[in-house]
C-alpha cells in the first residue's frame, strides 16, 4: 500500500477543507450540535425536577455573569484551546490525533523536570520549561508519527493507546523518583519555586499562557493561509495522492504535523503545571486532551470555530460546578451534558465516504 492510498483512506471523516476561519456550514453544525445536546440535557434536568431554563440561567450567571466566572472560563480555555490546536493541526493534513491527553502529560512531565531538576538559575526556569514542555509533547507525538509514516500504523489508534502509557509514565515519576521527600508519602512532586510560575495576567489564576492560545490560533491561520508550507499541508490534507504526484513529500508533512500537534499539547501541560498546579501530580489533566479533541471537531478545525468551542466548553465546565453548588444536582450531571454534546457532534459530523475529484 502506498502512502497515497493510505492517505486516501484517511480522508474518510476528514474535516471540511474550505472556509478559512470557520469551515463552510460550521456555524450551522455548531448550532445544531449544541442545541440538540441542550434539549436532551433539558430532558435530563426535567427528570430531576429541575427547571431547564432556570438551570441555564444559573450556569450562565456562574460562568459568564461574574468576573470570577469569566476569568475561570479563560483559565479553562488555556488547556482546551491548546489541546484543540493539537488536534486541528494534524487534522489539516488529514490525520486524527487522539493523543492530546498523553502529549499533555509528557509535556507537563518534561516541564516539571526542567523546573525541578535542571539546576538552572531562576530566570531560566520558565524558558527551559517552555522548551521542555514542547519537546516532550512533540517527542511523544513523534512516536505516533514514525509509526504512521514508516509503519503505516493508524495514528488514531496508536495515539489513543499511548495516552495510557503516558499517564503511567508520569505516575511512575510522581510515585517514585520525583515524589516530594517532605510530603506525606503522597504522590506529588516538590512544589515549584516562585520563579518557575507563569505570571498571572488577571486575578490570581489566569496566567500569561492564555497568550499561547491566542498566538497559536493566529499562527495556525497565517501559516495555512499565507505560507508555502501551509499550502502544501492543505494539499496533503485535501488529496494526498495528488500531493504526492505533484512532488510534495507527503510523509514529511504528516510527520511534522503530528509532532507540531504534540508540541502544542505539551505546551498545554507545561502551562498547567507552571500556570496553575505548581507541581507535578497524577490527574493534572481533567480530560483536557479529550475535551480539546471535542472542541477541535466542534470548531471544524478552524481557528475561530475552535475559539468558540473552547469558550463554550470552558463555560460548561465552570458553570457545571454551579449545578451542584446552587441547584444541588448530582456531581456527574455536567458530565452528562459534555457526553451529549460529544454524541451530537459525532452524529452530526459530515461524513465523507468519497474523495471529491
Amino acid at each position, binding site marked *: 500500500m502506498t502512502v497515497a492510498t493510505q492517505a486516501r483512506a484517511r480522508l474518510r471523516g476528514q474535516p471540511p477543507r474550505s472556509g478559512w476561519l470557520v469551515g463552510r456550514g460550521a456555524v450551522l453544525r455548531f448550532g445544531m450540535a449544541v442545541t440538540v445536546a441542550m434539549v436532551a440535557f433539558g430532558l435530563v434536568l426535567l427528570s430531576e425536577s429541575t427547571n431547564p431554563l432556570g438551570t441555564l440561567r444559573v450556569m450562565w450567571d456562574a460562568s459568564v455573569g461574574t468576573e470570577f466566572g469569566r476569568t475561570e472560563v479563560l483559565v479553562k480555555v488555556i488547556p482546551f484551546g491548546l489541546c484543540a490546536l493539537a488536534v486541528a493541526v494534524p487534522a489539516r493534513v488529514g490525520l486524527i490525533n487522539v493523543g492530546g491527553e498523553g502529549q499533555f502529560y509528557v509535556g507537563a512531565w518534561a516541564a516539571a523536570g526542567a523546573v525541578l531538576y535542571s539546576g538552572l538559575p531562576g530566570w531560566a526556569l520558565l524558558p527551559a520549561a517552555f522548551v521542555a514542555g514542547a519537546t516532550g509533547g512533540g517527542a511523544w507525538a513523534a512516536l505516533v508519527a514514525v509509526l504512521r509514516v514508516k509503519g503505516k500504523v493508524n495514528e488514531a489508534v496508536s495515539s489513543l493507546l499511548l495516552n495510557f502509557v503516558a499517564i503511567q509514565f508520569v505516575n511512575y515519576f510522581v510515585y517514585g523518583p520525583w515524589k516530594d521527600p517532605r510530603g*506525606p508519602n503522597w504522590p506529588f512532586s516538590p512544589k515549584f519555586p516562585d520563579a518557575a510560575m507563569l505570571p498571572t495576567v488577571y486575578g490570581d489564576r489566569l496566567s500569561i499562557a492564555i497568550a499561547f492560545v491566542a498566538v497559536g490560533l493566529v499562527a495556525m491561520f497565517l501559516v495555512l493561509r499565507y505560507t508555502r508550507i501551509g499550502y502544501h499541508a492543505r494539499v496533503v490534507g485535501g488529496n494526498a495522492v495528488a500531493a504526492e504526484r505533484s512532488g510534495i513529500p507527503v510523509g514529511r508533512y504528516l510527520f511534522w504535523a503530528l509532532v507540531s500537534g504534540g508540541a502544542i499539547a505539551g505546551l498545554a501541560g507545561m502551562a498547567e503545571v507552571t500556570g496553575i498546579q505548581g507541581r507535578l501530580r497524577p490527574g493534572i489533566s481533567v480530560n483536557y486532551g479529550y475535551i480539546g479533541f471535542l472542541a477541535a471537531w466542534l470548531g471544524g478545525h478552524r481557528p475561530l470555530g475552535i475559539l468558540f468551542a473552547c469558550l463554550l466548553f470552558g463555560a460548561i465546565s465552570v458553570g457545571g460546578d454551579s449545578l451542584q453548588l446552587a441547584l444541588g444536582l448530582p456531581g456527574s450531571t455536567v458530565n452528562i451534558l459534555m457526553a451529549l454534546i460529544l454524541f451530537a457532534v459525532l452524529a452530526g459530523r459530515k461524513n465523507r465516504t468519497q474523495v471529491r475529484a
Partner: protein
Amino acid sequence: MGILPLHAGRWLLCLATVLAIGLLAVACGSDDESETTDGAATSPAAGSASGAASAKTTVIGFLYVGAVDDGGYNQAAYQGQLAVEKLPNVKAIKAENVPESAEAERVMEQMIQQGATIIFPTSFGHLDPAIKVGEKYPNVTFLHQGGLKTAKNVGTYFGASWEANYLAGIAAGKATKSNKLGYVVAFPISQTLLNINAFELGAKSVNAAATTTVVFTANWCDPAKISESVKNLKAQGVDVLNQHQDCPGAGIQAAEKAGMFSVGYHVDGSKLAPNGWLTAATWDWAKLFVDLVNQVRGGTYKVSQVRLSMADGAVKLAPFGKAVPKDVRDQIAATQAKLLSGQLQIFAGPIKDQSGAERIAAGAKQPEVTSLEQMNYLVEGVIGKIPN
C-alpha cells in the same frame, strides 16, 4: 452533495441517539436519588441546637472527591453533612467529584462566592488547595478531613480507624484458613499504613501465622482495579479481604463471589456479602461535624488537629456477619473494652517493621497520635512493599 452539510437521516439518528442516552441518564439519575434518600433516612439526627448558633444563615460548603453515594468514604462524610444541615440557620452546599488538584481551589472559591464561611474539604489531597484558598480568604474557616498540617484558618479532624481495624484483624485472623489476609489500599499515606499495621497486629494477636498481603491501587476509587486486585490476592491463596478504598463495594462483591471473607470500610457493607461479611471500621462524623460548626459559629473554634477514637464514638465497628462465631464476637468485645479503657495499646512496643528492625522499642508506650501519623513502614507479617 448539497450546500447544507447535514443530512436529515443523519440528524434523526443523532437525535434518537442523544435522546436515548438522555433517557438512560434519567433512569440512572432516579436510582441514585432513591439510594441517597435511603442513606439520609438512616443517618443519626445529631442536631443539637446550641445557643451558639447566630440568627444569620451560615453557608457551609462540603467538597467530596467522589460521589456521596459511593458506599464508602464520601457517603460517610455526607452523613455528617446531613447532620449539619439539621442545625437551624444553616445552608449546606456540596460539590462531588472534586479532584485533588488546583480544580479544588476553584470549587472552594465558588463556594465562598455563594456565601460559604465554613468549608469541609473532605479528601486528603484537598488540603493544599484549601490552604492556598485560605490565604486569600482569612475569614473563612476550613475544616479538613485527615490533614497532617494546619494553617491560620485551616484545621483538621480525623479518627483512629486503625483501632477498629485491629479488632477486625481479630475476626480475620480467626476466620482465615490459609492464614493469608489481603489488604487492597489506595495510597501509601501514614493513615492507610496505620490501618494495615493494626489489622495485621490484630490478626497476629489471635493467629501467630497470619500474614497480610498488601496491594496499592493508586486511586481512591477504581472499582475495576480493586476487583482485579481481589482476584490476584485470591490466586495467591488469600481468603480474607480488607480494603482502604473510598468505595469498597466492588471489592466486597468480588470477594464474596470468590468465596472470600470480607472486612469493609467507612460504612456497613454487610448487604453486599451475605456469606463472607466479617465487620468493618466505620465512621460516625455527625456529632463531630455539628460540634465543629457550632464552635466556628460561636467564635470558640481554635485551629487544631482534632483526632477522635473509638472511645469518642467517631470510629465504630460495623455489625458482625454470620461468618463471625459467638466466641470470636465475645473475644472482640473484650478486646474492645480493654482498648477503650486504655488497658490495651495497639502500637505499644515492641513493634518491628518488615525487615525485623525495632521501630517502637520493647516496653515503650504507644506514641502520641501525631507521631503515629508519621508512620512510614509496614510491620512484620505484612507482605508487599510501600511503593516509592
